């Protein structure tokens, strides 16, 4: 039997994924995600003893370059795409619990 996700489990996953969802949405996603997990159950049961995992199809090697300064993206142009910026930095609401 495959994993059946409850609405509560989906609400927890949504919190981990930083997605605000309603109770109604949790129920819908619980059904859909459970159906997907049921479909992949066959793969979960495949005998893969001794088979190494592949994280990348073709062999990767570390890529290094000389540590020399060179031009990068224009700061102001990058910041102009942000919802809010101030003094050359991204501006966000408070991160810690205390009042500003």
């Amino acid at each position, binding site marked *: 039997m495959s994993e059946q*996700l409850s609405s509560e489990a*989906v609400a927890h*996953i*949504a*919190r*981990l*994924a*930083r*997605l*605000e*969802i309603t109770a109604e949405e949790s129920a819908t*996603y619980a059904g*859909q*995600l459970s*159906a*997907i997990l049921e*479909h*992949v159950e*066959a*793969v*979960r049961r*495949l005998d*893969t003893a001794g*088979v*190494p*995992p*592949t*994280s*990348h*199809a*073709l062999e*990767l090697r570390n*890529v290094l*370059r000389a540590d020399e300064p060179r031009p990068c*993206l*224009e700061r102001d*142009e*990058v910041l*102009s*795409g*942000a*919802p*809010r910026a101030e003094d050359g930095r*991204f501006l*966000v*609401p*408070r*991160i810690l619990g205390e009042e500003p």
Partner: protein
Amino acid sequence: MTPPVGGATEIAARVRAGELSAASVLDEALAAIEARDRELHCFNSLMGERARERATEIDRMVGAGQDPGSLAGVPVALKDNICTRAAPTTCSSRILEGWTPPYDATVVRRLAAAGALLVGKTNLDEFAMGSSTENSATGPTRNPWDTSRVPGGSSGGSAAAVAAGMVPVALGSDTGGSIRQPAALCGVVGVKPTYGVVSRYGLVAFASSLDQIGPFALTVADAAAVLEAIAGHDEMDSTSLERAAPRCSEVLDDGADGLRVGVVSDFLADASPDCASAVRSAAEVLAAAGAKVDDVALPELLHGLSAYYLIAPAEASSNLARYDGVRYGLRVDAPDVETMNARTRAAGFGAEVKRRVMLGTYVLSAGYYDAYYAQAQRVRTIVARAFARAYGHFDVLLAPTTPSVAFAFGAKTDDPLEMYLADLFTIPTNLAGHPAMSVPFALGEAGLPVGVQVLAPALGEREMFRAAAVVEAGAPPGVRGPVGTRSAR
């Protein structure tokens, strides 16, 4: 109606020879878009001004006896997940509304350097997640062969724009079939190159171990010309292979004599009769041209779909973490940063993106990682080994691109799994990092186009194009775009 735009290599040859002005080619493309895009919605935005400046420059160069490049004056559309400096790049998502990238993708710079005219950004399933272009915040693209049907996806706008004769060439991205599947459904050529052959610098990341950029074109020769212009090593992409672009144009007249072709028999059983019989007919064309054709059983490939729907969402959940209301596009204000993140993402992402982000988050979470993600990676090895076994005996493989012809709007939107099955035959290639391409070969149910898929081992692009050229030459007339807009049939 007669499509106004010819093929890419033909346009470039005439522009370079001074017989045709780049400005007039651009005018025709923009007029075709103006005439038909209200109905088809292939484009999210146009870059007419930038293209016009470029066209003027190209015509000046030709006049001065200079060569503007291999794609001189060729109008090209870009999938809207490829970054263009100072021009909107939305990924068809509300979360990137209003954002303009501070740089051009490497493929954009290379196309421009080859003399191409970048005319606009095409519609896609949000963040390239989907197989119908219905998951777009800007609305669906319609299939020019039958406007009551989907163009496929996720690069549906690019495929439909080429099929409708608006542009002779477009770029897409293929993570699980997002170039080949819409190419098949729209009756155009679509190529997914070997992983690492085309730089992904400036391609908005979906599943980084699978994503690859490739061309759509009207003909195999045009696709080869575009691939040659965009491929080759790029130090800005650490996964870029250190080799020159594969020279595919030179092998197009080589024929199939002696080529060993394997027909993936397991896929034929899962395809509709029209798609399966197209593969059989294409195999006969190759055999008649001197290829040695045999069936090959590769049942392991059918496990690819399930492995993909664990691996791709896992990578997506990580890649899409960056859309948090801080650096790009949309922000929904809230008193603290975590609530701001969660509300921004809730408002900015559509249902399919949320589904995949949550699925990916779940399969990567503590206690489930081994059962799902690590297991899927082992299955990825099994798929790669099955291909390796086949390529011990064959130079290329032949398979259907899709299980059926283009389906109706709404036919698969209620059941995510049903939609995922549209990629059953294209996904294994991405898991293995191999090249594959779809070539229009027949008309199937309701007179809609059917594509045949040619697959090759890593860096087997030349053999793949060789076989594709033979298949294309053996296809009956009328099976490919450009096509005038038709309503439901």
